[in-house]
Structure formats: C-alpha cells, structure tokens
C-alpha cells in the first residue's frame, strides 16, 4: 500500500479513511504527453512507457484553471457519465474527474453530490505508544512477561 508521498516521515495514509477509485477506464485521468499533444490511452488508467519525447526539465508548465485543463475535465466527465448511466439515472461525479490531471483538484472546496466510486481499501491508523526506553527500568525484572503496552488508537486525521 502506498502510504503517500511526502517530503519526510509522517505523511501517509490517513486514519479512518476509505479509498474509492474510478469504476472503469472511463473514470481515469488522461495525461497529455505535452501541452500541445493531449494523449488518451485506451484500455484503462495508464500511459505509454517509455515516454517518447520527455520535455526538457527547464520547461515550466503552469496550469491555468479554466483553460485547457477545464476542457479535459469536461471531456472526462462526459465519458464517465456515459459509462455510469446504467448504474445511476442521475449524473455522477467520478473520482477520476475530482482528482483531475493536476496536483490539486479543480473541485477543491466544493461540495459535490452523487460521487461514485469503488471502495478499494479501508484504513484506520493505529498509533503506537511511545517506544520503550532503551534502558529498562531497574525495577522491571528481565523477561518478566509483563503485558505489552496497549496501542493507542486515535481514529482521526493525524498527518
């Protein structure tokens, strides 16, 4: 399980969460090969590898919300709606369209209804009690078989 990408320790799976994922390739996100060459891959979430023409690392791609990305999202939404029409008579928002092709969701801060997805995992974080001291208490006899410390469960966002 990927616990998340962060710049250091502690950034990971959130407690009390469930992951829901696109229900089909129709809910997948399409990543362009370059700003001028949008590319959608057939047969599911993925892309061709190796990348044929990597952009130069000096190139900075700045997203303009409401620009070409908006069009991509709209296309994805349309495809998803068609794919899910047999499941629900009302319009549904897919996980793929919420995540979108950028770092941040274009729906950030919005309350959406009828979000549809597949429950892929349920995660509840267990926080261990502090590690025992490296030097045991002199009053604790070695190999005493004392009960293990009870883990502290904290079902809330921690990271």
């Amino acid at each position: 399980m990927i616990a998340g990408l962060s710049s250091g320790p502690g950034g990971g799976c959130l407690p009390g969460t469930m992951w829901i994922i696109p229900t089909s390739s129709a809910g997948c996100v399409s990543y362009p090969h370059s700003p001028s060459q949008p590319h959608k891959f057939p047969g599911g979430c993925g892309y061709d590898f190796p990348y044929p023409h990597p952009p130069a690392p000096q190139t900075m791609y700045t997203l303009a919300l409401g620009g070409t990305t908006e069009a991509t999202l709209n296309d994805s939404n349309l495809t998803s709606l068609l794919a899910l029409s047999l499941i629900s008579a009302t319009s549904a928002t897919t996980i793929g369209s919420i995540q979108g092709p950028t770092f941040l969701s274009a729906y950030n801060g919005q309350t959406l209804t009828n979000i549809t997805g597949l429950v892929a995992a349920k995660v509840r974080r267990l926080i261990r009690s502090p590690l025992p001291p490296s030097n045991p208490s002199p009053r604790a006899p070695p190999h005493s078989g004392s009960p293990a410390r009870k883990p502290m469960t904290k079902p809330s966002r921690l990271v």
Partner: protein
Amino acid sequence: MVFSTSSTILGSVKVGDLVSLNARVSEFRSASRPNDLHLTELASPTNITVLSSGNPIVPIVLGRDRSPPTQYLSSLDSGPDGFLSVPANQSLQDTPDRQLYPASYGLDFWESLEGQVVTIPKPISLGFGNSFREFWVRGSWRATGVNGRGGLSITFGPCDLSLVQARF
C-alpha cells in the same frame, strides 16, 4: 480518499462496494508540514449508498503496468544540477497548481497514483521505518541510482525518484 471519523460511516461499506456519496472536496496538508504535497480528500461524507458489492479490486502492478521515470524529479527544477540547482526554492510543487507529466517526472508519477491500490513487486527496503511504521522501498522496476548496497543514491543532476514510501 474519503475521510471520516465516524465508525457508522466506515462500517457501512466494505472493500469491493460500488458506492455513491455526497462530500466536500478538500486538499489536505498538515499545518505542521507545509512542504508536503496535498492529499485530495472527500470530507464530511453523507448519503452513502451501496450500489453493488463484490466488485473486484485490480491493483496497478508497478514495474509492469506503469514504471516510475528515472531522470527528473519535477518540471520546476532547472539548471545543470537538477533538483539541487540554486536558486531553487521550488519545494512547493503544487503552488501554483501544475499539469502532471507522470511519464517524465518522478513527483508527477507518484502523484498520479494518489488513491490507487498498487502492487509493489519484490519490494526492497531502503532504510529503517519511522514511528508510523513507514519506510521507503523500491520495487523490481528499472532504477538508475542503485548503489552497491542495494539502496538508491540521489546525486546531482538527473534524479532517480523510483522509490515510494510504504506502510505495513
């Protein structure tokens, strides 16, 4: 990712359920960790309805279905020393928000897998775990920075970010 502290909500669904719900989209990042990437969450879920159950979960097999790029960390980094070039100050990868290029840049690759279930074939630990039982691993995919001890060396210039943090 749906975030909830309600045992009622979490207990109302199980893995493999196709569900619909209402929720607020939130980009979460701990206030104490301002350099982390955001996680997209669905907060305050309501009206969770199970549409069907027993649907298969097919993980993405890393190294087979997709492989991390091994040359560049981010499109924000420039200069002969790659991500170590100065002036840098490009640690906030999503400010402003950017288009992802998962086939080219390591950070973009892992960000594109957010919320996905993946399989890491033949994982190799790259270090000791932290207090959250998280530690960095690499799988049996192509990596250019493998050193003599089986770890990954990050050097000046092209950056091999073919590693991922896992929790077991």
